[in-house]
C-alpha cells in the first residue's frame, strides 16, 4: 500500500526532497477512498511524516511545499530524542522553510558538544566600562527580535560597594565610564544546578554535556515557568513574532542556538553555541573592547578561565541559592 511504502521510505531516512515531490505527484493522481485516507493518516501520524499531506490531504491543507514542511515539523521529536538522521532532516526542513518564507539561505548545524569541555565565563568588574558593545554584538549574532528589542545581556552602572545588580542603574545612557562607578554585566549564568530546568513541564530546556543550558524552541509551550524560576532574570520571552531584517540576519545558525524563534517561545543566552562549539569565542567576548570578558573550557587546566579562577578574587551572584552558576565576577 502507498502509505506503507512511504512509511518505509521515511524509515530508511531518504531525505530527498525531489523523491518526495515525485511520489506525492504520483499519489495525487490516485483516487482515495475514505478508509484508505484514514489508514494512511494513521500511519503518517505514526511515523510523523507527511504522507497525509502529500497523499490525499493536499486539498485540505494546501499543496504548497511550505505547508508540507510545516506539517512535518509538527511531528518531530524533542531534540534530545532525535537520531542524528532525524536531526539532519529537521535541519534540512528548517533551512528550506527559511528559504521559502524569507528567501534567505541559512546554514544550520546541530554540532554536538565536545567531550571534556565545560564552558565557563568570567567577568572583570574592574575593566568593564559600560560601552555595551557586547549587547549590540549579541543582538546581531543571535538574531534577537528587533521589534521588542530583546537583549540577553544587561549592563548595570553601580555605585562602589554595591554587589547586586538590583541596586544598580540599568537604564543609564550617557558618556561612560562615569568616575567612581563600576559596571556589571548580567546574562544567563548557565547554572549547573539550574532551577529553570526543573521548572519546565515539557522538558523543553536542559543542560547540555558541555554545560550550556539550552531550549528546544519547538518544544516550548510558552508557559514561562522557567522565567519565574530563574533567580537571575536570564530568560527572554517572545511576546510577538520576532522580527529580524533579512540582511542583518546571522545565517550561520545552530538548532539550539540562534535559529529563528517564533512567537510564544522562550529563549536565552546559549554562550553562542553556534560559535563556541566550533572553537570560537561568543560574540560578546569577541566584541568587548576592554577585554572584561573571559571565556573558555573549565576542564582545561591551562585555559584562561582556569587562570582567573585560580589567581583572582572571584565571586558568583546569589551563590547561597545553590544554583551553581558557571559565571564568575572578578576584580583586578
Amino acid at each position: 500500500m502507498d502509505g506503507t511504502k512511504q512509511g518505509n521510505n521515511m524509515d530508511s531516512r531518504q531525505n530527498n526532497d525531489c523523491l518526495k515531490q515525485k511520489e506525492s505527484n504520483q499519489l495525487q493522481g490516485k483516487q482515495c477512498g475514505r478508509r484508505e485516507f484514514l489508514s494512511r493518516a494513521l500511519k503518517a501520524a505514526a511515523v510523523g511524516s507527511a504522507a497525509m499531506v502529500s497523499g490525499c490531504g493536499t486539498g485540505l491543507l494546501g499543496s504548497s511545499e511550505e505547508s508540507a514542511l510545516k506539517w512535518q515539523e509538527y511531528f518531530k521529536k524533542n531534540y534530545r530524542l532525535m537520531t542524528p538522521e532525524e536531526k539532519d532532516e529537521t535541519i534540512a526542513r528548517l533551512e528550506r522553510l527559511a528559504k521559502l518564507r524569507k528567501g534567505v539561505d541559512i546554514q544550520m548545524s546541530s554540532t554536538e558538544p565536545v567531550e571534556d569541555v565545560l564552558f565557563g565565563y568570567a567577568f572583570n568588574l574592574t575593566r568593564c566600562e559600560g560601552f555595551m558593545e557586547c549587547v549590540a554584538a549579541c543582538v546581531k549574532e543571535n538574531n534577537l527580535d528587533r521589534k521588542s528589542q530583546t537583549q540577553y545581556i544587561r549592563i548595570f552602572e553601580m555605585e562602589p560597594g554595591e554587589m547586586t545588580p538590583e541596586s544598580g542603574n540599568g537604564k543609564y545612557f550617557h558618556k561612560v565610564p562615569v568616575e567612581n562607578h563600576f559596571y556589571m554585566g548580567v546574562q544567563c549564568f548557565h547554572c549547573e544546578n539550574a532551577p529553570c530546568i526543573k521548572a519546565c513541564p515539557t522538558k523543553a530546556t536542559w543542560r547540555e554535556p558541555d554545560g550550556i543550558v539550552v531550549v528546544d524552541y519547538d518544544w516550548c509551550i510558552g508557559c514561562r515557568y522557567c522565567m519565574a524560576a530563574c533567580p537571575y532574570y536570564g530568560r527572554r520571552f517572545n511576546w510577538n513574532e520576532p522580527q529580524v531584517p533579512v540582511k542583518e540576519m546571522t545565517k550561520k545558525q545552530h538548532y539550539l542556538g540562534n535559529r529563528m524563534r517564533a512567537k510564544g517561545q522562550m529563549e536565552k543566552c546559549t554562550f553562542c553555541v553556534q560559535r563556541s562549539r566550533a572553537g570560537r569565542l561568543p560574540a560578546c567576548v569577541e566584541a568587548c573592547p576592554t577585554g572584561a570578558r573571559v571565556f573558555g573550557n573549565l576542564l582545561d587546566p591551562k585555559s584562561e578561565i582556569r587562570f582567573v579562577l585560580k589567581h583572582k578574587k572571584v565571586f558568583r551572584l546569589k551563590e547561597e541559592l545553590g544554583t551553581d552558576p558557571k559565571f564568575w565576577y572578578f576584580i583586578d
Partner: protein
Amino acid sequence: MKTPTLKSYFFRILPALLLILSGLQVYAGQGGVVATIKKATAPFNDEERVASVPLLPGDTVLVKTKYQGGIFWTETRKDKVERFKCSQCHNNKDVTIAGAAEMAHGDITSVHGGKQKPLSCFTCHKKDERDFLVTEKGLKVDMDHSYRMCGQCHFRQQKDWVGGAHGKRVSFWAGKRVVKNCTSCHDPHSPLFEKRWPRTYSRPLVK
C-alpha cells in the same frame, strides 16, 4: 500490646532513614562545579578535540614569555606603525624638509605617566636605537614585543595578560593561543580609554 512486626518497625525508622539519605544526597551534591573543576587536571588538547580550530594568523609573533608552561602568540605592531622603519628618516643624513617632525609626528600627544611623572618620548625611544624600544635597564625591545616595554611599570597587568585575566584572546578559545598585544587596544602614547557614548542602551525587562 502487640510486639512490633518487621513492617511496622521499618515504618518507625523510616523518617530517620530518609533524613540520612537526604543528608547523603546533600553531601554528594556539595562542591558542585567548583569541585568538578578542581578534579579536572588532565591536559586538554583542543587542537585535536575541537574540529575547526584556525591556523595561526599571519600577523602574530611568538611571545617570549611562557604561559602556564606553554607558548602563546600575540599580534604584531611594526606592520601597523605607519612609516616603519624609523631609521628611514632617522639616520645620519640631514633632513631637508621644513617642518618634517611636525608633519610626521604632529598627531602624537603623549598623555602617559600622570601629572607628577609624565613620560617623554625618550622614556621609550632612544636616539641611537631608532628601530627599537629600549627599557630602563638598556634592553633592546622589538616593537612587536611591546608588552616587554609596558611590563616594566605595569608588571601586574603584564602578569595578568600572560595568564589571561587582562587583555583578550583573538576570536578563538580553542587552538593556538593568540592574544591582543598591549598596543592592539591601548595607544602607547595615551593609553587610557576615552569616555564615550555606549553603543546602545538596556531595555526594561518584559515579564
